[in-house]
């Protein structure tokens, strides 16, 4: 069975400090991994996907198949990064996503 684990329910860092949101997964094949973000009073939106290998809003995430991880990183946190972050996995095709329970990121001024 596929599973996504986000070990931190809450992560609080100061503005300007580095941020790392952890995500580990369990899947027997080659998954696609995603990070979704939900800002206060906004809908859940796609932040980035591993196959794009891009940086969005300063965030990057690298898929580490050996460690089965897909941690989200940003070198310098900004106050507007405060939000709920969800890691998600897809086995491909039309199947739905398997989500982690989310990490609430709070950036303190």
């Amino acid at each position, binding site marked *: 069975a596929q599973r996504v684990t986000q070990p931190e329910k809450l992560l609080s860092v100061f503005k300007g400090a580095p941020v790392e949101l952890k995500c580990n997964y369990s899947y027997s094949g080659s998954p696609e991994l995603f990070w979704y973000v939900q800002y206060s009073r906004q809908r859940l939106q796609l932040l980035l996907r591993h196959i794009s290998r891009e940086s969005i809003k300063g965030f990057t995430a690298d898929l580490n198949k050996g460690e089965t991880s897909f941690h989200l990183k940003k070198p310098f946190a900004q106050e507007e990064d405060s939000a709920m972050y969800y890691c998600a996995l897809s086995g491909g095709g039309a199947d*739905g996503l398997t989500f982690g*329970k989310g990490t609430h990121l709070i950036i303190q001024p």
Partner: protein
Amino acid sequence: SQTIHQWPATLVQPVGSPLSLECTVEGTSNPNLYWYRQAAGRGLQLLFYSVGIGQISSEVPQNLSASRPQDRQFILSSKKLLLSDSGFYLCAWSGGAASQYFGPGTRLLVL
């Protein structure tokens, strides 16, 4: 551009009453459609998905059902609500790739 709508935004229903939540997508054809639920303190759980009109796949046994009467319409229903059906219901669509795009959600409170 594509947009996805859900209504109602909030719903308070008594136990035992029926439920109908609607999701529609604009700006695309033949989307894959999904219903998720987010219960308090838990992540998003996939409930149903559909790859075409009349085609519904259920991920977990439950008190709910889904239907897709039109290409861009996805409905979540129940004949008799339970207290445990309370939660935040999200509809999503994808264009065939794994990336999914979410609606604003419906908050359901069953009393």
